């Protein structure tokens, strides 16, 4: 795996914030790598483990626990639709369906272990997320780092158009 010098420098700097135990730097380091590569590969897991003097399983445990870490490549725009109770009641499942239709994403292969589906052209990817902390304004979703509230399923196409 090729970690660019400046990313590694950033990572090394982040590790210095945890003088007592390097282990505590695992999350920030993983974020740095995901930001750069888009997702956390198996190689990245091993790279981080070596960096922090840990065993790879220690890192894999984290990566598979936090839904924020992806283990497969997302599209250019990664959409996360909240499906927790309030949003579900406000129509987040419908929203998911509409978004998939519009972006031509096939979710039939999605499972607990492979939550992300990517559009044919690789432009969009999508997954369900748990509470995004805006229960009063459901359904909500994130597109990369942009937060969208009260997204009407019928207007899914409009939302996607913003990312042309």
């Amino acid at each position, binding site marked *: 795996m090729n970690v660019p010098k400046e990313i590694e420098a950033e990572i090394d700097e982040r590790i210095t914030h945890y003088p007592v135990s390097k282990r505590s730097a695992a999350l920030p380091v993983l974020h740095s790598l995901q930001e750069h590569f888009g997702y956390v590969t*198996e190689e990245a897991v091993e790279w981080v483990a070596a960096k922090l003097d*840990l*065993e*790879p*399983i*220690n890192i*894999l*445990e984290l990566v*598979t*626990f936090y839904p924020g870490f992806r283990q497969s490549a997302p599209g250019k725009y990664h959409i996360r639709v909240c499906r927790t109770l309030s949003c579900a009641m406000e129509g987040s499942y419908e929203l998911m369906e509409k978004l998939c239709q519009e972006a031509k994403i096939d979710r039939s292969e999605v499972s*607990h*272990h492979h939550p992300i589906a990517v559009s044919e052209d690789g432009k969009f990817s999508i997954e369900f997320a748990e509470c995004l902390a805006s229960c009063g304004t459901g359904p909500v979703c994130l597109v990369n780092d942009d937060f969208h509230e009260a997204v009407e399923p019928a207007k899914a196409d409009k939302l996607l158009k913003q990312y042309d």
Partner: protein
Amino acid sequence: MSEANDKVNVQIDGEWHQFPKGTRMIEACRLAGKEIPHYCYHPKLSSPGNCRMCLVEMGMPPRPRPGEDPPKPDKDGHLPIQWIPRPAISCANTIAEGMGIRTDSQLTNECRHGVMEFLLINHPLDCPICDQAGECRLQEFSVEFGTGGSRFREKKVKKPKNVDIGPRIRLDDERCIMCSRCIRFCQEVADDDVLGFTDRGSHTVLGVHPGKELSNNYGLNTVDICPVGALTSNDFRFQMRVWFLKETNSICTSCGRGCNIIAGAREDKLYRLTPRDNNEVNSSWMCDYGRLNFHFLTSEARLTDPMILEHRAHRIARWSEAVGRAAEKLKEFDASKIAIIASGRMTNEELFMARRLGETLGIEKIAIVPRSGEADDYLVSADKNPNTRGARLILGKKVDKQLKEIAAGVKKGTITALIALDENLLKCGFEEDTLKKLDLLISSHILANPTASLSHVVFPSTATVAEKRGTMINRTGRLQRLNQAIDPPGQAMDLWEILRDLAQALGGSNGVYLLEDVFKLMAGTIKEFEGLSLGKIGDQGLPLLKPKESIPLLERERERIEKGIIVG
């Protein structure tokens, strides 16, 4: 006063007890005769408190509010207890002065019911085909604390089954109750951090990191401590229902450590060895090598009958005939021409009988075959003989050096008769051609081998593992007992019996009939054994000689006990 200070008063189910400061609640209850059900807690591992099975109702003396009178002690000096509506885990919490614990209250029982119900939601309930059935904590606590029926109508989560996580261990993830004992064992005891939980949540999966395996020499201990049938031993799975196993306390004889074990056998077949707690020897663990080193007992090469060489071929003989022949032949030799090769795998009693035979005949050359290998940084000793220290004590320190002299004597022709006890001479410095020069070679063996083929008289002997009684002294000088779990095959006998019969045939009856007689004689002859008997040694052994080495695994465990990380 100071003694009173180190003790803490705790009420358990209405009765007051005193325990040392720092005692875990669960251990205090155990000492008071109240077993608290638990899964994740293991006294030799850290306590993450993750299973919640050990929840109990707990209380403390009330703290007076400002202006309120302090609570009054009763006539025995105990303060009243204010019960706390929230249960507490008893495994990771320590007792405090005046604490009350209820192990059988409504709250406690409801907690146990609840935890059991959750644990069983996704459990496959395949007890009929599960190896753990019969010694499964989940099964046992279901009987005691389960509801008998399930309210779960949804689909169970599917998880990986029959996963090869290493050369000796198989994992059924659906049976795993996520107690993390195996993970902690690998991290804390075996220093081989390969196990972990991925996809934590309702899909939590225990496993090894892709491309890694659980292959360290202590891995099978995880199978023992797994409270359910998630981890099974490839060697034992589907071989025998555990409730049919007759369990015998003994020791491992695959190296000088002498790990304490339980031998599980049925109808004279040994099915498994598992470690038995002994905090002076092996803690609660044993190495995989020693654990699995018993399959030779049923080898095709097993000798089952005495044999006599006649017309260049061996024929099966009756026991008395073989003994008679050996004795008769031995009488033809001057004692200075005879040597004995004993073994560091013999019990003290057998070594003592070898010494007696030597004394009866006046034989001065007696040796054992040293077996050294590598020690690990855990339990395995560099001495691959289980009883080197016993041999040195009983036969004298010279036994180490004499092997070479005897080999040279045979070569030169100054030694013409050899008695070899459970050792294959071709593997310890003797050559086939020189052995052929011997006028008499008497040997005993467990398995057929080239030395047996060259012998004039061959006795079939029993294996130290599970087939005989006796004692050995391990590397740290501890005198420990071997017990017999199974009957040996055919006419095979313990070496002390073979030597007893031989000595009798040579010198007449000597009052030795039972193993106890041998021990008594030994206790009367060798001062270290003075005052001892087989019964006095007990299941945990006795320190007899000065320890010559320390046990790395135990040292580290003691440190962890000191730091309060583990109970020990």
